[in-house]
């Protein structure tokens, strides 16, 4: 169904490298890993097992516009604990426009973490509107529809063990 863009081995190697870098960079103060549900879950699970530090994990969810409801982007699931003075590393499966992540970072920054960085497995930077500092990047990816390893098509295909691309005809089929 999907053509493989990044296979399991490449994913595993790169995630291990990112884990090593994060371990070295945060050696004195293990970070809180924050993931925005739901796609980042798979990456977070593998990444944290390659970070040789006692990291903690937490989750957020951000809502988009709901039909008929006025307003703006909002948090629908917040962190369980305060982050003031805590080093926070936001773990994302993919960044494209940067609009959602920009909002999340603004919210988190207001809570005065001791540091706030971003680790993204996939960076579709050709679609970026808001430039964001990505401290740890797995792969730059082309402007294609990606599935697998947390990325879905209408809620499906998240569990594929690789990152794949779908053909246009498959998407329209």
């Amino acid at each position, binding site marked *: *169904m999907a053509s493989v863009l990044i296979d399991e081995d490449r994913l595993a190697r790169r995630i291990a490298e990112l884990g090593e870098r994060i371990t070295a960079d945060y050696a004195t103060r293990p970070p809180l890993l924050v993931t925005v*549900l*739901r*796609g980042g879950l798979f990456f977070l699970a593998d990444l944290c097992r390659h970070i040789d530090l006692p990291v903690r994990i937490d989750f957020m*969810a*951000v*809502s*988009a*516009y*709901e*039909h008929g*409801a*006025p*307003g*703006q*982007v909002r948090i*629908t699931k917040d962190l369980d604990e305060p982050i003031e003075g805590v080093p926070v590393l936001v773990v994302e499966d*993919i*960044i*494209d*426009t940067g*609009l*959602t992540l*920009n*909002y999340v970072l*603004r919210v988190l920054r207001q809570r005065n973490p001791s540091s706030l960085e971003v680790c993204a497995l996939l960076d*579709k930077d050709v*679609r970026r*509107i*808001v*430039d964001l500092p990505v401290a740890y990047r797995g792969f730059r990816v082309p*402007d*294609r*529809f*990606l599935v697998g390893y947390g*990325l879905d*098509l*209408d*809620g499906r295909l998240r569990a594929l063990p690789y990152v794949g691309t*779908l053909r*246009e005809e*498959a*998407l*329209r*089929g």
Partner: protein
Amino acid sequence: MTSGNPDRQNRPEGAQPGGALQELPCSERVAGTAFAHPSERVAAQILDFYRIRWDYEPRSFPIEWDRRGNVIAAFAPDFYLPDLDLYIELTTMSQKLVTRKNRKVRRLKELYPEINIKVFYQRDFRNLLLKYGIPVRERAHAEGGGLIAPAEDDRG
């Protein structure tokens, strides 16, 4: 495989498949701004939704002068995002006009290298709208060109 769209990548949670996200909230500011093109209104709505402050065509940059120093051409990017110190220009029109606009943007960058500007082409903008489940219609050049959300049809 049922319906799917290649441009809904990284769709925010809550955005519904199949184009249920048909109309973004319209702030008083958007409603009160006279946009030159419907696609600019949609862009402003998306920026509003993500709480990104914007100014619409706040500044015109001279880019060409005659021998006497009179300005004979200027360029006013569509949006300025003060928090990002970024100008945005939407080009949802024919390739011929895009070429002309590209020239203007290039000139702007030469004359004002301190200015940050991003150009959004029709494909970029279509992808952005589809990502948020906003169905779009491609308008004929005679109608003004560009992409518009169906709701814009109703507004004329």
